[in-house]
């Protein structure tokens, strides 16, 4: 083991004297500074904007003039997805997901206002968050830094001299690994530590749990670096020239970062073609026809009941459903459309939810397959883990959506109850339910991180075995 430490110290010394360490530290500091500054800037802007707008929407909700329960229901309420403090560092898939919606009486408008909608160019090029720096750029720096670790020694002729000493190849590999990890830890740890806690100075509220999550993300990054160091050492020990090692490693990096995740999407689309969004419109048109039929039946029933008390109601009123003005002039106290409203709304929303679920299920199958294939890339495993901890993954979004769905029903039930108990005017809306986001249980996020971390560890073990085999068999002459 002493030999391993000696080799590691030697690696570090070479990096120090060749100024590679200085260069790497400069690059790391610049990358982390830019990523954290941008994340913090976006976070503060979003937080302030949401607080300001929530106050406006709240004032309007409470300041509305007395109106019928149905009209109050139509005034609608605003639901916004809260951002997590750690989204500063890892945006995950958050940029591609809707952030808010208005729950209007009949219409559960889907979540809108994603960053992709606001800043399409950013969606196209991608953001520059710490997640991108660690998942995409860090492995590239490892490739640049470690590609000549073995092939370079061979080219310079130092490999023969090293291995002529009583040093096991396993110790040689361990020394190279420790040396490279130390180089990256020295270059990245200071800016990361400053960067990770810098947002505290701008008033981002970190909980103790967030610190634990940050440390776990940090540990995952270290494993991720170790994985690429192993791959670099293995490839370097499979080639005789550093330039060949660099070319092969660049190919590996491209495959891991771009090709495998995208290929997953291609294969998933071919195996389980997801329904086009327009399919929902077609379904919705069919649904309306079905509703129209049931609405006509319910309407005829209500009108026949009304005519018992109001014989002046014309018999053909059933076909004049749109004639609201006439109804108002006649002074009928019962709004036949309103009587049907809750039933129709329930029908529309249930059926729409079922149709959406069908369309979504077709997408979920594709998503599951794409996710599985994407996991063939360690980058995806790393990203899944960090975004689960940062609260910016798809699972947390689904957790939020489920709450919005439940609240939509509660909100609607409240006004339907008022209507059913013959309340004509709502003068105080403070009794109406308001949306309170319940954070996802921490265990769920940690479980997702754990699964991703296991996958990452498995990749790292595989890469270690590959490097070991290649170095053992390497012809050092």
């Amino acid at each position, binding site marked *: 083991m002493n030999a391993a430490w000696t080799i590691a110290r030697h690696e570090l010394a070479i990096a120090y004297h060749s100024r590679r360490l200085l260069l790497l530290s400069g690059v790391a500091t610049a990358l982390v500074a830019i990523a954290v500054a941008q994340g913090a800037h976006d976070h503060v802007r979003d937080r302030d904007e949401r607080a300001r707008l929530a106050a406006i929407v709240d004032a309007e909700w409470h300041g509305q003039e007395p109106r019928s329960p149905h009209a109050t229901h139509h005034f609608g309420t605003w639901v916004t997805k809260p951002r997590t403090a750690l989204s500063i560092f890892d945006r995950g898939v958050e940029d591609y997901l809707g952030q808010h919606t208005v729950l209007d009486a009949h219409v559960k408008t889907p979540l809108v206002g994603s960053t992709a909608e606001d800043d399409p160019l950013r969606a196209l090029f991608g953001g520059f968050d710490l997640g991108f720096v660690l998942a995409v750029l860090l492995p590239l720096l490892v490739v640049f830094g470690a590609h000549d670790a073995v092939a370079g020694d061979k080219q310079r002729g130092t490999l023969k001299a090293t291995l002529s000493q009583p040093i096991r190849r396993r110790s040689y590999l361990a020394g190279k690994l420790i040396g490279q990890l130390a180089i990256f830890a020295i270059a990245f740890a200071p800016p990361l530590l400053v960067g990770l806690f810098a947002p505290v100075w701008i008033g981002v509220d970190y909980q103790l749990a967030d610190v634990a999550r940050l440390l776990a993300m940090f540990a995952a990054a270290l494993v991720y670096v170790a994985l690429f160091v192993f791959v670099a050492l293995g490839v370097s020990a499979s080639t005789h020239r550093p330039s060949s090692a*660099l070319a092969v490693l660049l190919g590996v990096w491209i495959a891991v970062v771009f090709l495998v995740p995208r290929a997953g999407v291609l294969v998933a689309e071919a195996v389980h073609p997801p329904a086009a*969004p327009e399919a929902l419109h077609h379904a919705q048109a069919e649904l309306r026809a079905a509703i129209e039929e049931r609405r006509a039946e319910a309407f005829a029933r209500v009108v026949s009941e009304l005519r018992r008390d109001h014989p002046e109601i014309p018999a053909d009123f059933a076909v004049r459903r749109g004639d609201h003005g006439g109804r108002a002039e006649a002074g009928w106290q019962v709004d036949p459309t309103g009587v049907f409203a809750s039933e129709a709304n329930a029908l529309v929303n249930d059926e729409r939810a079922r149709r959406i679920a069908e369309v979504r299920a077709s997408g979920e199958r594709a998503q599951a397959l794409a996710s599985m294939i994407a996991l063939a890339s360690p980058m995806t495993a790393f990203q899944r883990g960090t975004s689960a901890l940062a609260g910016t993954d798809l699972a947390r979004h689904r957790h939020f959506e489920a709450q919005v769905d439940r609240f939509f029903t509660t909100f609607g039930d409240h006004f339907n109850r008022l209507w059913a108990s013959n309340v004509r005017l709502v003068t105080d809306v403070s009794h109406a339910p308001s949306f309170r986001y319940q954070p996802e249980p921490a265990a769920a996020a940690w479980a997702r991180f754990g699964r991703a971390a296991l996958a990452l560890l498995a990749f790292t073990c595989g890469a270690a075995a590959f490097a070991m085999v290649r170095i053992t068999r390497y012809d050092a002459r």
Partner: protein
Amino acid sequence: MTRAILSHTLRLHLASRAHRAVTLLMMALVVIALVRAGTALDARRDAMALAVRAAAAEWAAVPPAAWLDAGVRQGQWLYLPERAERVLAAGPQLAPSYHARVGLAPAHRLDLADGAISWTPEASAFGDLDLGFVLVVLAPLWVLFLVHDAISGEKARGTLRIVFSHAVTRRRFLLARALGVAVIVIGAFALAMLIGAAIAALRGQLAGLEVATLGLALMLAAAYLGIYVALGVWISARTASPRGSLAVLSALWVVLTFAVPRLGTAAAYAWSPSPSSLEHEVDKRRALAEARRAYVEEHHPVAGSSWMAERVLVAQQALPREAELDAAYRAARREGRTLATRLSMVSPAGIAFAAILELAAADIARHEQFIVQADDHRRAMTAHYVRAMQSDEPDGRAVLDGVPAFSFVEPSRGDVRRRVLARIAILFAMAGALLVLAVRSFHRHDLR
């Protein structure tokens, strides 16, 4: 002698197994990207045609008495037509929805149903494997791999001194080397594009694609890849070893392809903060609430009166203010976007992205045109309904049939082509400038 160097360069690349493998991989990616985009385009067009027919049938089935109900609740689906050019690039997928539901109730402004139900969020984060991505992001690395040792390799092997012991100038040598790689990369890329396009065309997926568009895409590819050929020979001439040139060139590729466009966009939005869609929605709701207050003060409607009719009248009163807000919002966003585009254009990747998105009719400006026209259509629809409500005995069927039809007015393709041509010219100029730099740098280089 130039011809000899050129043919030697071609033979060198064709003989290398690694070069052949990487080139075939790149060609396969181009073909896959085009064929896959053609299939997706076909599926989308079918779904859209189905939805358009269903929407028309739905509208025709509205009972005449329910004309007001249909206008307020149901609204109309409007679709941004899918053009065959989209096989070239998918564009920012989730950002613009391809459809709008336009009703008289303001909540129906835009239905981004796909944002909520689509399976794409993670796929969008990964990015698409379309021709735009293959050309702008992946192809440069392939070019750099082929070109990085064009000069430095000869230097490292010691063959450069032998070459210059013959009657050949440095300029000729460098240009012949660059030309050799350019012939290979542009030829292979163009061939792959033609194969991909031919497969898609044979499957009937490219109906409506103009040959001029394909020609411009080929020119764009030639200009863009030409830049990396020139950059490659320049750096190769300045570095002592192939490893050094590959490391420098890969780092430059990362900076030009990822860092500059991403940082440019981030800097632009930080520099010119424009309102978010959330803020814009809240502003519009406030405008509507004010219009409603004004309406209540003027008309004193009683509870249980026709709220649907009220809603149309209130919406009409709010329209001018909404139009103002929309215009201000779009202007602010356009300002940020223009700055972001300009900053990203510091890099050839930014220019090439902008060009291929416009060529593919997948640019943000076209989508914005769609939103503007959809909003205009909503105003026309509201005006139509208000006119109907003001008449004594509106004929429901006539009101429904009289709703103005929506037809998207495409931006002029001639203008698009001119802009793309201008960008291609800039890229060619960049490639030329880099080649001049390479020649000058090589002249001063100590070959010993």
